């Protein structure tokens, strides 16, 4: 039959569906990177060149080790999915400003090679690479990982005057004298904590910047609200109960939320798709578990004033179990009526 159209003789044949949302892993990772920009800006503002140094060190090491290790393992290159950049930025955000560069490099290599690629690469890693690397450094290099400086005090130098984090200060005072540290609330007005003017890891200090990024991720549907809301909500509730019981020895709930790594953890670490549950119910359970563990460590652990990293890592291990018990009821599979 004579064919007057310009269509090809042979059309492309493939299985349905023939449409896609357009959201790819790469796009999601880029969105996460964009969402981290406010916190990056805050870290540069508060910790200057040290922040820049750490972010560059971590990101370049992550990209390099990802490329090399995948090559050695005979896997397809995957640097262009930008997940290594996300890991690098997150690890940098979780480091104190004066930590030596070589530690940042070792941590980054550990995150990519041991925590991610050894398990099979993106998607197969049971633990969040950046978090696992942070905890490794915390245990292996405790001194450097717990040396804090006030913002501005360590702009260029790694030898700035050291101080304690608000949570560290509180825990120290409480465990030695069982009272609130003198002048604590005068030293850390709540607004300073919200904006980020406090000692801490370079990316965790500014609740405002993290909140902007987190809301952006929810709006872009890259994370579900369940994880951060249940996580922060559980911390607030427990801290509130403890505070109501004894306001002398328990830190106010708003301080619990705005200090330490809670905001960074709740919006950027606990929400990591690979290492968090797949159902919304599971995400809620996961968030509550993270909140519980964070508070237990902050309040009752011997040596650690902060518990966000340990809490999320521990909950990472429970994800398969949570997925199993929160499986949705398949449509049409009704419970038999008696």
């Amino acid at each position: 039959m004579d064919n007057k159209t310009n269509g090809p003789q042979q059309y492309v044949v493939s299985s349905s569906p023939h449409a896609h949302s357009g959201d790819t892993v790469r796009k999601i990772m880029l969105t996460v990177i964009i969402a981290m920009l406010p916190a990056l800006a805050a870290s540069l503002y508060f910790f200057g060149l040290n922040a820049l140094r750490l972010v560059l060190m971590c990101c370049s090491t992550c990209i390099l080790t990802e490329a090399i290790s995948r090559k050695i393992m005979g896997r397809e290159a995957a640097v262009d999915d930008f997940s290594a950049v996300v890991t690098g930025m997150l690890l940098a955000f979780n480091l104190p400003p004066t930590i030596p560069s070589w530690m940042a490099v070792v941590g980054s290599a550990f995150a990519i090679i041991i925590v991610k690629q050894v398990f099979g690469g993106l998607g197969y890693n049971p633990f969040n690479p950046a978090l696992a690397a942070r905890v490794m450094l915390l245990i292996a290099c405790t001194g450097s990982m717990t040396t804090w400086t006030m913002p501005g005090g360590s702009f260029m130098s790694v030898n700035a005057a050291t101080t304690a984090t608000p949570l560290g200060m509180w825990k120290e005072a409480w465990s030695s004298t069982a009272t609130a540290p003198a002048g604590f609330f005068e030293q850390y007005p709540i607004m300073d904590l919200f904006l980020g003017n406090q000692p801490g890891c370079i990316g965790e200090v500014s609740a405002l910047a993290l909140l902007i990024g987190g809301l952006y991720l929810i709006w872009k549907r890259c994370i579900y609200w369940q994880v951060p809301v249940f996580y922060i909500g559980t911390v607030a509730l427990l801290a509130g109960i403890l505070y109501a019981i004894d306001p002398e020895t328990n830190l106010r709930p708003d301080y619990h939320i705005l200090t330490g790594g809670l905001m960074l953890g709740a919006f950027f670490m606990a929400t990591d798709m690979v290492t968090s549950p797949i159902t919304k119910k599971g995400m809620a359970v996961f968030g509550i578990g993270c909140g519980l563990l964070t508070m237990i460590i902050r309040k009752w652990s011997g040596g650690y004033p902060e518990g966000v990293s340990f809490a999320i890592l521990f909950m990472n291990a429970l994800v398969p179990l949570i997925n199993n018990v929160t499986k949705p009821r398949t449509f049409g599979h009704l419970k038999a009526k008696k």
Partner: protein
Amino acid sequence: MTTKATYTVPGGIHPKYHKELARDRELETPTMPVLLKVSMSQHLGAPAQPTVAKGNTVLRGQRIGEPAGFISAAVHAPTSGIVKAVNTAPTATGAVAASIDIEPDGEDKVDPGLQGNANWQQTNPEDLISAVADCGIAGMGGAGFPTHVKLSPPPGKTIDTLIVNGAECEPYLTADYRLMLEQPERIVEGISIIQHILGVKTVRIAIEDNKPEAIKEMERAASKLHGDIKIVELNTEYPQGAEKQQIYAVTGQEVPSGGLPMDIGALVENVGTAAAIRDAVIDGKPLTERVTTITGVPLQRPSNVVARIGTPISHLVEFCGGVNNSACKLICGGPMMGFAIASEELATTKTTSGILFLAKSQVTAFSSTPCISCGRCVEGCPMRLVPSELSQFIEAEDYEAAEAMNLLDCIECGCCAFQCPATRPLVQHMRRGKAEAMLRRKREQAEKK
């Protein structure tokens, strides 16, 4: 009267609809092609058996294929002419079935033996069901289930709610929409015939809220119906038109797994099927033409046509001014569940609701990467399955584990794959898993014997 649906599909997605391409194009009748290719496999179930031979002359509406079994449907000549060949041809799914080539004589003479029944209200339901069967009516929403089977519930099953499906949730397609807009009376007469056959008082006409004009027209036409009649406005969300999901959206009830809508007293008929039932009963007219949307960005003039069944796609493309050279993919049906086909030489059938061309820019070749457990497939699944885990079990060839996770409930709607950021071929995995599960069942049955 119109009410908002109380429920909506579980899961679901919001693809880009692109309905504007063909939405405002009135129904047109294209010219007769030089050759009609009428497949014997246009419905779900056993293909019909050809009853004519090369050289026979046929009249429009004359039976050329006998149903082969209970779940099967008759096939009729779409126009008068000469049988040029009885051969085999691939269907849209790629399966091969008997096919009859008819060369139209241009006179379009109707078989004088066909008789309508203006007195259907006084006719008993069995006779009306056989009229529907005689006319070869099959579900026109896409699946093509033989309608007379649906209208004959086995003893003990009663149907109390008729749901008329005008959702048309597939992107691009506007065939049902045009039909509701231009010929609502045909649909409504069909509905009242179904009501009479089944003794059903409750009728729900389900339409997505992105078709307000259709809702208005159907509301006006439906005022002639008797009983508890309502237009139900569904949220615009894919797949509101899927049978089980639509029943849930309208009634809040779930069809039990492995069961049929009639298990909970419901029956769903597509608007086009209702109109075809009307033509079969009142005019005695077999199903030999249907409304098809032919659309897509590469197409010169997207249209809604009333084309004879068996019209080659190439003929319709010509009628629509041709496609430009960006055309890359040709789909029979909509983009979510339609079948990609290689050649324009394929002909339309009773279930061809749409013919869609996609441009090169809309088609991407992709390789899939490992699942990142984002949960979007779980969120989107209208059967509340866990596609991510199912697909991993199937990849590992652990079909029993997949079956234990209710793999067989999958309706292959494509919501999971549409959303998957790792572009995993989830629907293909499901199909493979289902095929393997069915094979295993067959083997087990054979072993028992």
